[in-house]
């Protein structure tokens, strides 16, 4: 049931960069904000940016940012009418969405059933196939238990195939099978992992793509049946399923081709009654798209789409949560220039070990088309408890080459001392010729890192 109630105070059930991003959007819309924080973030300046801030628990995320009850109690104490989950933490938690609504507040995101459907990979694929969204070859049903039936399915798809846990995601609970000899053991192992890690042994099987790119489509839906897609992004530059650089639009994909997929996504949203913002993730290979999953939340890389579409996605998210009708239709959505986002992580640029400590000096790049979303400042203490993302550098240019060039300058002038960051790696990556050319696949970065390590 779409929530239509109005709210004037939003509690942000998250921390750091995204908390600040939501505070900014709320402030611009005249909404009051409450930031909850853990003991580790007590002294961070960003928590004071909200109208109210309240400590909800000890540093460990399970005791604070994942402590659903503590967050709901804080919302009640502060009189918040809505909860924004940000990304990560509880953003795609079915029970949290339901609990927020049960407590009489608005969950800024889809309802529990949409989250649950999209969280179940088999159900999601089934819903997408029904809506005409292109999917990876393979049945949209759970893998049977009989070895012969499994063999037949794999043979039907053609090797290599990938066996995935229905409840998995983010690169966990999957196994590539190159030929029939490996099949049964791979299935048994993955099933056992799935049972342990996700509480359900349900598996499914798909065609394994060898050199895909990661392309995603940003959608925005209101509670009145209107939906638009705001463009697409290329997030192929990944290391261990963690995106490092994202850009919009994806280079080398024709507008006609992506337009068909975008339309299918919009239709899918309307068919399942989706509300709020969401992202359809696809693998793209040899001119074809294959749906992999839908993220039912705001994404880290949403700014690149904001830059190219000129739409403030967080504000739109708040508006549809208020029950407003979308103020734009698909014809109003345009894509201007090219945007690139670099994730600045507090981690060793060679070993990728997270680094904690105090940022002793910070100078953010400035200039036309340069945006930095961050909650840190000089004197900020990076705690070891959470994700290592400390800032996002978003650069907008006339075209891809221009955006690349501006990113190089911005990275060069980005000064952050006291802790190790991946800035040196990013600077080096932006000098890479293949990346500059574009259209690299999802394995490119890892290969590049190996070569670089060897060099």
């Amino acid at each position, binding site marked *: 049931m779409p929530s239509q109630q109005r709210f004037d105070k939003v509690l942000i059930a998250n921390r750091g960069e995204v908390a600040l991003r939501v505070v900014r959007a709320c402030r611009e819309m005249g909404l009051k904000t409450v930031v909850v924080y853990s003991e580790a973030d007590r002294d961070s300046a960003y928590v004071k940016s909200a109208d109210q801030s309240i400590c909800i*628990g000890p540093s460990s995320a399970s005791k604070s940012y994942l402590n659903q*009850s503590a967050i709901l109690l804080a919302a009640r104490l502060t009189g918040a009418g809505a909860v924004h989950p940000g990304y990560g933490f509880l953003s795609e938690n079915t029970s949290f969405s339901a609990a927020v609504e*049960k407590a009489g507040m608005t969950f800024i995101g889809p309802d529990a059933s949409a989250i649950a459907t999209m969280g179940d990979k088999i159900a999601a694929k089934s819903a997408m196939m029904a809506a005409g969204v292109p999917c990876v070859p393979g049945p949209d049903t759970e893998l049977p238990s009989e070895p012969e039936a499994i063999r037949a399915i794999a043979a039907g798809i053609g090797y290599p195939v990938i066996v995935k846990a229905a409840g998995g995601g983010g690169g966990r609970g999957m196994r590539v099978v190159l030929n029939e000899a490996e099949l049964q053991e791979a299935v048994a192992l993955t099933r056992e992992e799935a049972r342990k890690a996700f509480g359900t042994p349900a598996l499914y099987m798909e065609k394994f793509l060898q050199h895909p790119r990661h392309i995603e489509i940003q959608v925005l839906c209101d509670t009145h049946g209107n939906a638009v897609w705001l463009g697409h992004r290329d997030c192929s530059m990944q290391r261990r399923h963690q995106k490092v650089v994202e850009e919009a639009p994806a280079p080398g994909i024709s507008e006609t081709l992506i337009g068909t997929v975008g339309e299918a996504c919009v239709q899918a949203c309307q068919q399942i009654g989706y509300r709020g913002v969401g992202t359809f993730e696809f693998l793209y290979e040899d001119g074809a798209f294959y749906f992999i999953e839908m993220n039912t939340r705001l994404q880290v890389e949403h700014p690149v789409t904001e830059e190219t579409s000129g739409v403030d996605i967080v504000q739109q998210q708040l508006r549809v949560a208020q029950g407003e009708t979308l103020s734009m239709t698909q014809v109003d959505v345009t894509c201007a220039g090219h945007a690139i986002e670099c994730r600045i992580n507090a981690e060793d640029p060679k070993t990728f070990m997270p680094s904690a400590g105090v940022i002793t000096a910070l100078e953010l790049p400035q200039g036309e088309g340069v945006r930095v979303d961050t909650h840190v400042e000089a004197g900020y203490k990076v705690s070891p408890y959470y994700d290592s993302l400390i800032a996002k550098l978003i650069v907008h240019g006339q075209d891809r080459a221009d955006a690349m060039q501006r990113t190089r300058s911005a990275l060069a002038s980005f000064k952050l001392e006291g802790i190790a960051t991946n800035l040196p790696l990013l600077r080096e990556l932006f000098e890479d010729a293949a990346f500059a050319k574009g259209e690299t696949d999802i394995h490119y970065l890892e290969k590049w890192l190996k070569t670089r390590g060897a060099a």
Partner: protein
Amino acid sequence: MIEIIQTGPFNTVQDLGRTGFRNIGVTTSGAMDPLALKVGNSLLGNETGAAVLEIQTYPFKLRFAKQTSFVVTGADCGASLDGRMVQPWCALPIEAGQVLELGQPRVGTRAYICIAGGIDVAAVMGSRSTSLRGAFGGSDGRFLSTGDVLKLGEVSTALNFPATGLAVIDPAYALAYVYPANEDGVLLVRAIPAGEHALFGADAERFWMQTWKISTQSDRTGYRLMGEPIKPTTPVEMRSHGVVSGVVQVPPSGEPIIQMADANTAGGYPKIAGVIEADLWRLGQARIGSRLRFVRATHAQAASVEKAVAAFIDDVRSTSRMVCDALQAMK
């Protein structure tokens, strides 16, 4: 299990009563202060109508034979656990062997000892309430006696109470906005005029205007009121009909009787009024010898109070669990 170490007469096992059998003459029974029972059970995470001990004579003492949690609601009777003061309306985790003692009430008359899982006596005709009249239900259909050992129900999703306990705001305070305050120590009880109200003519007004005193001949079955008698203008012969707790009947003496939890199922006395459901608990906590006055109410008012009370109970249940879960997650 719990063991009764010391008890006076008239203390019983009660739940929300045995509904659906008034048509075969079986009284509902159930707690005299159902609000205290519901709030206690909700705080503990029990089924709202789980069986509890209703204590109306003191001192009362019991020993817990296993680790569990409990709360004393209703009357504030200076409860202590192993000699340490226990705050009223405060759920506490306890260890096996601890002894709970209740003294004379300072406020109210009936205390409810609610324990996680509820008192697991056999349900008779769908209820664990003691039917004193029928001599069944509860602990063998009788008052609790020293040496009684009662089983406790299984808890499906037990709450982990902090060692300092977890209290609920006294409903009398939390719901003060939907209940009229006492006037000069006189309890105001809201009632709706009943079938024979008009028969009392001018005496009907005297029924509402005067202050009635609860006589010593008052118990779980009914409260006899003392005051200036009221009489119907003409004698009336009623055919036997069903009645419910809260009915205010006027016997030939002219002094009204309010039927309470152990109300007769049928009656034939003219009835002048009926106390609204949401105010019955306040009568359940009224002391013998105390005074009350009836205040006319409408169904709409009664329904609105009922909703406020139900919302409070729901709020207690969900917030109690949330606080326990939040604290548990922080451990």
